[in-house]
């Protein structure tokens, strides 16, 4: 039996990568990633082109002529422009986003309030977020789009499908965004609130001057994520007959028996969501680096 001392002073250990794994080390790493990328892309492309139905799929979805025609539209034959329709998606998304941010913040504020007077509102706000985070957006769109007009409530019943769509989107997304804000409020360290209160600031002033400014900063990336899905979900409003990009693509398809418009609409959505996604990732990285720097 050797002593502990003997075991510590063992001969120099082998620190080299075993030969069979050296393909991926050092300068070979770059070559390895290039080869694997080329192989993967080649495999995917060849599956697409060698599939038995490839030619008809390419004609049906990726036809250059139809993609352009569906994009610009043809009013004389009742074909609506997908490009124009997409503006509907954009304004719905922008208008809804403003409403959602304001209402979401209000709902979150009510949920974290402590005033006895606000008790019924707290219950209401809790019930609201529970219910509308649980119902599929499509059903809310149907219920608002066909339900509100039937209420016969003056101006509420005479709006266009776009407006009902916006109302439905706002109702559902406010519930999500309120929860994001609430999580942000709870993420502010308790010491911040103690410090503010010990200066004699009221609960409301503390919220406005100390808690919310810090909470909003932390929730910007998750809010952008919700904004991205909101932008896509504007397409659901088409079920009410609102003429937006997805609806225009559908009409083109059913009229000309060519689905290239669907691809065009998809590309338009991507043109907005991909830059937003990249931007969100950049913000998240920046936050992460800042936290790591703060630890160092």
């Amino acid at each position, binding site marked *: 039996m050797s002593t502990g001392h003997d075991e510590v002073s063992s001969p120099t250990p082998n620190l080299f990568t075993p030969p069979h794994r050296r393909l991926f080390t050092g300068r070979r790493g770059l070559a390895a990633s290039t080869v694997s990328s080329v192989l993967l892309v080649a495999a995917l492309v060849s599956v697409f082109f060698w599939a038995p139905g490839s030619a008809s799929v390419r004609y049906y979805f990726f036809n250059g002529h139809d993609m352009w025609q569906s994009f610009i539209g043809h009013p004389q034959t009742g074909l609506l422009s997908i490009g124009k329709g997409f503006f509907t998606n954009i304004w719905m998304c922008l208008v809804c986003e403003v409403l959602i941010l304001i209402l979401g913040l209000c709902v979150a504020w009510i949920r974290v309030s402590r005033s006895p007077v606000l008790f019924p509102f707290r219950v209401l706000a809790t019930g609201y977020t529970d219910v509308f985070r649980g119902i599929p957006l499509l059903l809310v769109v149907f219920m608002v789009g066909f339900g509100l007009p039937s209420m016969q409530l003056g101006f509420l019943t005479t709006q266009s499908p776009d407006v009902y769509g916006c109302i439905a989107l706002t109702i559902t997304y406010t519930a999500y965004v309120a929860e994001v804000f609430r999580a942000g409020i709870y993420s502010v*360290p308790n*010491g*911040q609130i*103690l*410090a*503010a*209160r*010990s*200066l*004699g*600031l*009221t609960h409301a*002033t503390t919220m406005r*001057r*100390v808690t919310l*400014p*810090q909470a909003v*900063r932390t929730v910007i990336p998750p809010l952008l994520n919700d904004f991205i899905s909101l932008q896509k979900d504007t397409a659901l409003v088409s079920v009410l007959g609102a003429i937006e990009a997805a609806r225009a693509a559908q009409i083109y398809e059913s009229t000309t028996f060519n689905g290239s418009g669907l691809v065009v609409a998809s590309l338009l959505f991507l043109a907005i969501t991909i830059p937003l996604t990249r931007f969100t990732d950049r913000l998240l990285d920046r936050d992460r680096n800042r936290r790591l720097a*703060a630890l160092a």
Partner: protein
Amino acid sequence: MTGSASGDVVLDLDHVVKRFGHHEVLSGVSLQLHRHEVVCLIGASGSGKSTLLRCANLLETIDGGDISLFGQSLLDDHIDPDLVRRHIGMVFQSFNLFPHLSVLDNILLGPVRAMRRKPSEVRDEALALLDRIGLRDRANDFPDRLSGGQQQRVAIVRSLAMRPALLLLDEVTSALDPTLVGEVLDLLRDLAANGTTMLVATHEMNFARDVARHVAYLDHGVLIEQGTPDEMFNHPQHESTRAFLERVR
């Protein structure tokens, strides 16, 4: 500064009891703080020092006893805790500066938003306070650009800007790098010399010995004994006080 006249009492903690669930963290602690007096609370971590300070500030509700400020009970139903806290400054172990506000705005927040004073008027006072701690040129920096010692001194000055009747200091040097403790203690010595009324929870025995007029030893929520620094450090009466001082020496 005799402290015997009852009119001189700023803060009177009278048999304060505090429980968290079934756990009693303060078992009838009585302590008086007179005007221009520094009282140091010593005791192991978890002995209830921080809780006692928070109770004094109404950041915690108490379960028994009474707390009065200038002879008025703070347990009265019609007492507004926000008004009480404007007269009591509090400094925390972890500084708790507001990271989204500049150093100057940290100091202005209380006077402007709680006292509704004019920013232009408070600004000069705030800059004078920063001058006093040698950080006037950092007024527009954000707290994360400052060292721990600088942050803590700003936090002290932030509570002074409210012109409080007394300061509660909760282990304000415990989170600091040892090389930065000195500058914070020097500021506190300076404040004590100028007659600031302070209740200081601390592990700095030398500071307590030099600056305190009164030292109180807490153990598991019980105030074991209190007296002058000489009585406490040189002639402790209780075995547990002796044992504690032996351990921290």
